[in-house]
């Protein structure tokens, strides 16, 4: 019953984040969905990732969203028609969910009796060391990309003022 409540609240928050017209409110709904996702991760037996999702997904990313919305400025609520007609978008999304349900739900009853004996740190540092390398490359690349984007914007603004 508790899981049902968590899932219902999570999907409600996610839907409100997508449906809302105000960006700041959408960012807050997204933070709520992230926090509830973290609880679901904990329930699935993944406490390490749940903590990271709570701090990064619900914390850092929300701060970044609020920061970006404050700098960019909130646009007036969008009342224009979407690029894809709304009924078509609903049909595509429902078809995707139905297809996923048809493929995934029959396999849920089979739960493996094998239990991985390794600890999380062992798997991360010894078995999946290439993932760590990839993460470092991603972080360095991301920092360089953001610096390049912001520096480019500053140079353009300086040129315009001259």
């Amino acid at each position, binding site marked *: 019953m508790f899981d049902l409540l968590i899932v219902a609240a999570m999907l409600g928050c996610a839907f409100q984040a997508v449906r809302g017209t105000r960006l700041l409110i959408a960012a807050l709904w*997204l933070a709520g*969905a992230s926090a509830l996702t973290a609880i679901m991760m904990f*329930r699935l*037996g993944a406490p390490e990732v749940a903590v990271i999702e709570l701090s990064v997904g619900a914390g850092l990313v929300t701060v970044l969203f609020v920061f970006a919305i404050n700098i960019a400025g909130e646009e007036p609520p969008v009342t224009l028609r979407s690029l894809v007609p709304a009924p078509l978008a609903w049909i595509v999304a429902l078809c*995707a969910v139905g297809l996923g349900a048809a493929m995934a739900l029959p396999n*849920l009853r089979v739960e493996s009796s094998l239990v991985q004996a390794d600890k999380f740190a062992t798997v991360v540092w010894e078995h999946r060391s290439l993932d760590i390398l990839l993460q470092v490359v991603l972080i360095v690349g991301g920092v360089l990309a953001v610096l390049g984007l912001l520096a480019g914007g500053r140079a353009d603004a300086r040129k315009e003022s001259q």
Partner: protein
Amino acid sequence: MMSLSLPLMAAVAVLGLLGIGLLGLLVTRNLIKVVVGMQILVKGALLALLLAGRLSGQVQTGQTLALTVIVADTIVSVVALALAVQVRRQFGTLDLQALSTLRR
């Protein structure tokens, strides 16, 4: 009738998040809302990885893959938000329809 087990609930959450994220990507015209939709999609993928890890008895491998996805998703969000800020400064709008027809 299937009982309301944890894997079933997690699967419902995965499918719901993927559907809502896809819907958000399809209907929005705002650049920042595109990032919101993408974040919701990625949350569905994260839960799917953890669920698959649990069902196959490899919870720690699922956690490790989820950690990599969280890092990649955060970097993508940061770059996309920086891009949105620059687009707003340069063109004065975040509307995707207007951006696709605008010329500087």
